[in-house]
């Protein structure tokens, strides 16, 4: 996958960190200190379809050329997460019990084109 930079236009992972202290949640969420709510953004023209990140093989390159050649007749694909991992939380519930849970698929690690 590719991480977004200031001038990237193609599909990439945009990092976004939510600081629980900033949103006033640090009193009931014990750990962690924040949430990496990364998201996918950017263009997926046809020749990038099916490419999670950089083209890495001759086969991929040829396939891309074929797709580019037929671009006029097709539409773009979407920039979506290709790898995700759980968000582990330790928090107080409303009875002041301490709850530990792992919420699946909450953190985007990499993006690619469908």
């Amino acid at each position, binding site marked *: 996958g590719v991480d977004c930079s200031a001038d990237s*236009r193609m599909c990439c992972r945009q990092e*976004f960190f*939510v600081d629980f202290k*900033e*949103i006033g*949640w640090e*009193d*009931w969420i014990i750990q962690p200190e924040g*949430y990496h*709510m990364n*998201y996918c953004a950017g263009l997926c023209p046809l020749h990038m379809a099916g490419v999670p990140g950089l083209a890495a093989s001759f086969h991929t390159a040829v396939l891309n050329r074929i797709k580019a050649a037929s671009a006029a007749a097709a539409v*773009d694909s979407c920039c979506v997460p290709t790898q995700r*991992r*759980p*968000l*582990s*939380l330790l*928090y*107080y*519930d*409303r*009875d*002041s*019990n*301490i*709850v*530990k*849970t*792992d*919420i*699946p698929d*909450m953190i985007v690690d990499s993006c690619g084109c469908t």
Partner: protein
Amino acid sequence: AAKGAWCPACGVAALAPGSQRDALLALAKQSILAKLRLPARPSVPHPPSRGALLTALRRMRAQRSDTAAATPGMLRDPAQPGMGLQQYEILSFAESGSSASHRVHLHFRFSQEVAGSTEILQATLYLFWAAPGPGAQPVTVRLLQPDPAGANMTVASETRLEVQRSGWTTLDVGAAVRSLFGQETLRLTVELEVPEDWGSPLPTDHSDSHWPFVVVQAQARTPHRVHRR
């Protein structure tokens, strides 16, 4: 969407950076509360004492490694990602209820959010006995449940222990918590009865690191699957 352009998918104009950040923060709050099945963020908690919390977390870790060593592969490790179903470990400290000189009621509360959407894998009550005195001392632990016919409580189960030295005791309360999660009042009541000469079965100070607690391991219920014929 690029600056000044429209989002090709939803047709919304690109947001100014400040309002985009506000929108993302709002989305983060909504997403976390939804996944925790919470209607809103819990009110300001009354955290247990630091000593009690550290002792409880240490006991939980020791219990988990004992269980894993004794039954490899039998008990699903809640910390193991990728199990698919969301797992919870809930640590509830006792609230002291009515008491006599050598008998006391302990209450453990559980929230509807977790109770309403999970199945219990295991529930363990942790009790600490301080310097019981010479020889084996009889202690009785009763699990009480509300009497459907009246305001009193009935004994759901009774366990007699012989305490010979100071230290922690664990008791399986899975069945009691499981039956509790199906009811309105999500409160487990435990009655401790110790010999007369012990005095109170509870530490005198609520911030004592030997305060009783219950650990529940639960797993999100498997969603109801509709099979297409």
